[in-house]
C-alpha cells in the first residue's frame, strides 16, 4: 500500500459533502509581517460554512499565523502587522466599526495546549456567557453550561463534579473543556490550533469524533501537523508552504490527486 492509498483509507467516509456550502470567511491577499520578517505572502482562501477546513504544511509555514488572523489574535503581538482583507459573512473584521470583542465571540478559538482557567469546571464554561451577557439568570447560565458540555461530549464525565477545578482533568478532558468553553459563547466559527498535539491517541480520537459532530453547527478551521488527522476530519484542506498557499481543495482530492508538487511531496513524507 503506497502512501496515497494509506491516506485514502483514513479519508472521512461520512455522508457526502454538500457540493456547495456558502462561504463563511473569505480572505483576500492576507499578508503578515513580524517586524521586518514577512510570515504570510498574500493568502487568499475561502472557508465554507459548516465544514472543517484543515490547514496543513511544514513547521514555520505560516498556518498558525493565518489562523490567528481570523479572530485577530495577532493583535496581541505588538510586532505583527496584518494587511489584506478578511471577511466574516462579508464584513471586514478589521473594520474599525467591528469590535474585536464581538468578533472573538463570533470566532472562537481552541489552542494547542489545553488551557483551562484555574477555576472550577462550571466557571470555565460559564465565563464566556457571563461576560457577553448571554444568560439572564442562573438557571439559564447552568443550561448553557450543560448544553456546551454535552456538545463537547464531556457532560457525563464531569456532571457530578462541576465545582472541581478544570485543571484537575486529564489532558483530553481539559481540551474538550476548552472546546465546551469556546462553544458556550455560541460562536459561528471555531478555530483550532493543533488541538490534539498534546494529547494521547485515545484522547485524540475522542476529540476528532467531536470535531466531526461539531461541524453540523459550526464552521471549523483546524491547523494540524498530522495528515491522517486532516484526512480524517476535514472536507477542505489548504496546504501552506513558506508563507504561501501551495494548494487548496477538497480533502479527498488533495490526498489522492494533489495538483501541486509541494503538496504531493509533503503528503508523501518527502519533507516537513
Amino acid at each position, binding site marked *: 500500500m503506497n502512501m496515497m492509498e494509506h491516506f485514502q483509507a483514513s479519508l472521512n467516509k461520512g455522508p457526502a459533502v454538500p457540493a456547495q456550502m456558502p462561504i463563511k470567511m473569505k480572505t483576500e491577499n492576507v499578508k503578515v509581517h513580524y517586524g521586518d520578517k514577512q510570515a504570510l505572502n498574500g493568502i487568499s482562501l475561502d472557508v465554507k460554512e459548516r465544514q472543517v477546513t484543515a490547514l496543513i504544511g511544514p513547521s514555520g509555514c505560516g498556518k498558525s499565523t493565518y489562523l490567528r488572523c481570523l479572530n485577530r489574535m495577532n493583535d496581541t503581538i505588538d510586532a505583527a502587522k496584518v494587511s489584506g482583507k478578511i471577511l466574516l459573512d462579508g464584513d471586514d473584521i478589521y473594520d474599525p466599526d467591528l469590535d474585536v470583542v464581538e468578533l472573538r465571540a463570533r470566532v472562537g478559538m481552541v489552542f494547542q495546549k489545553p*488551557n483551562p482557567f484555574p477555576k472550577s469546571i462550571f466557571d470555565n464554561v460559564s465565563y464566556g456567557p457571563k461576560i457577553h451577557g448571554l444568560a439572564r439568570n442562573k438557571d439559564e447560565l447552568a443550561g448553557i453550561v450543560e448544553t456546551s458540555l454535552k456538545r463537547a461530549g464531556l457532560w457525563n464525565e464531569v456532571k457530578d463534579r462541576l465545582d472541581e477545578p478544570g485543571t484537575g482533568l486529564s489532558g483530553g478532558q481539559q481540551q474538550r473543556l476548552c472546546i465546551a468553553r469556546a462553544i458556550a459563547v455560541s460562536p459561528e466559527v471555531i478555530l483550532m490550533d493543533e488541538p490534539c498535539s498534546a494529547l494521547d491517541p485515545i484522547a485524540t480520537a475522542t476529540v476528532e469524533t467531536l470535531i466531526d459532530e461539531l461541524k453540523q453547527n459550526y464552521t471549523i478551521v483546524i491547523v494540524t501537523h498530522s495528515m491522517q488527522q486532516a484526512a480524517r476530519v476535514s472536507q477542505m484542506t489548504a496546504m501552506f508552504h513558506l508563507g504561501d498557499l501551495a494548494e487548496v481543495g477538497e480533502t479527498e482530492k488533495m490526498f489522492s490527486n494533489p495538483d501541486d508538487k509541494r503538496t504531493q511531496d509533503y503528503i508523501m513524507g518527502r519533507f516537513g
Partner: protein
Amino acid sequence: MTDVTANGLSDNAADTTKGRRDIGIRKRYASEKRFKAYGVAAISLGIFALVFLLFTVVSKGYTAFWQTEIRVPITFSQDMLGTPEQAAESQTKLLMANYPQLAREGLARLLEIDPEDKAAMTAAGKLVSTGVSVELRDIVMGDLSKIGTTEEVWLYADSELDSAMKGQYDLNVPESRRPISDLQLEYIQRLEAEGYLQQRFNWGLFTHGASSRAETAGVGVAILGSAYMMLIVLVLALPIGVAASIYLEEFAPKNKFTDLIEVNINNLAAVPSIVFGLLGLAVFINWFGLPRSAAVVGGLVLTLMTLPTIIIATRAALRAVPPSIRWAALGLGASKNQTVFQHVLPLAAPGILTGTIIGLAQALGETAPLLLIGMVAFVADYPDTPMDAATALPVQIYMWANEAERAFVERTSGAIMILLGFLALMNITAIFLRRRFEQRW
C-alpha cells in the same frame, strides 16, 4: 594467528576506551561532589552565622522582658495630697506632690527604718526608680478616693538594683566600686526573703515610651510609630506599585521610553536608603512643610523606598502567569481589562502579596532615612495621629544602643528581639499566603 591478533587488538581497544571513560566519569562525579560540598559549606556557614547572631541577641536580651519590682505599702497621705475634695478642684497639688517621699516612707515602714536616719532613708529611697513619681501620680489621679488610704503597690526597682538582681554586676568587689552599697544589699536580701521583691514580666517594655531611666523605658511609642508607617506604606505603595506594574507589564507599548522606565525602576531599588531620607527631608519637610519626626513623613519616605521592590515583585508575578491564560480569555472575547483583572491579577496575587510583605518587612527594619527626617527623637508620649512626633523600632534600637547604662544594653537586645519577632511574623504571613493562594496550572 589472525584471529588471535585481531582479538588482542580489539581487547586492547576496548580496554583503552573503557579506561578513558572511567576517568571521565570519575572526574564528573568528583566535580559534582565538590560542588555539593561547597553548597553544604556555604549553607552551614550561613546557619552558623544566624545561630550565633540569634544566640548573642537572645542571651543578652531575654532579661529585658523581666523587671525587678518591689511591693511597697504606700500611704497616700492627705498631708501631702490634700483632701479628695481639694484634689477634685485643683490638680496642682497632685502634680507637684513629692511621690518619691511616699515611696521612701513606705519602704521605711517595710524595712523598719527610723525616719530620722537620713542615710538609711536615702539608701532605701534609691532602691526604687525615680519613675515612681509618674506611677504613683497616675494611680492617685485615676482614683481620687485612694487619698488617705494605704495600698500595696508594685513599684519599679532602680535599674542598678535590677541589673544587680540579674547578675550583671559583680557584687564581690569593694563597696566603693559598685553602685549598690552594703546597706542596700542587706535591704534587698530582706525584701527578697519576705517576697516583697520579685522579678515580674516587664509589660512596660511594650507599653512605655522613651525614658531616660532604663526601668521605665519601652518601645510602645516606637511600635506605634512603626505601625503608622507600615500602614501608610501599605496604603500608598501597594495600589500605586501594583497599578504601575500592571500598566507597564500588560498595557504599555514596548518601546525605548518604557525600557528607560524599566531600567530606572530597577536602579531605584538599588539606591541607598539614606538618599531617600535626604529626598524626604528636602521634599516632604522643607518643601511641603510636613512636620519633622512625624510618622507620616517616615511613611512617605519608606513608600518611595518600597515602591521599586513592590513593582519588581509584581511584574515578576504577572510575567509568571502563563500567556495561555491570557489567550484563553482574549479568545473568548474578554477585553484586555477583563483579561487582566479577572484572570491574570488573581493568579499573580500570591506573588504580589509576598513581594509586598517582603517590601514592608524591609521598610520596617529601615533606619537610615528615618535619621534624616528627625525620627531619632525622645518621644515619651504616644502619638495620637501620624502627624505627631513618633519614633520607630529600629531607630529606638539605635538610640538605646548609644546609652551607656547596663540596663539599656539588655533593652537594646530585647528591642531587637521584638523587631525580629515582627519581621518573622511578616515573613511567615508571606509564606502562608503563598501556600494558601498559590495556583498550579
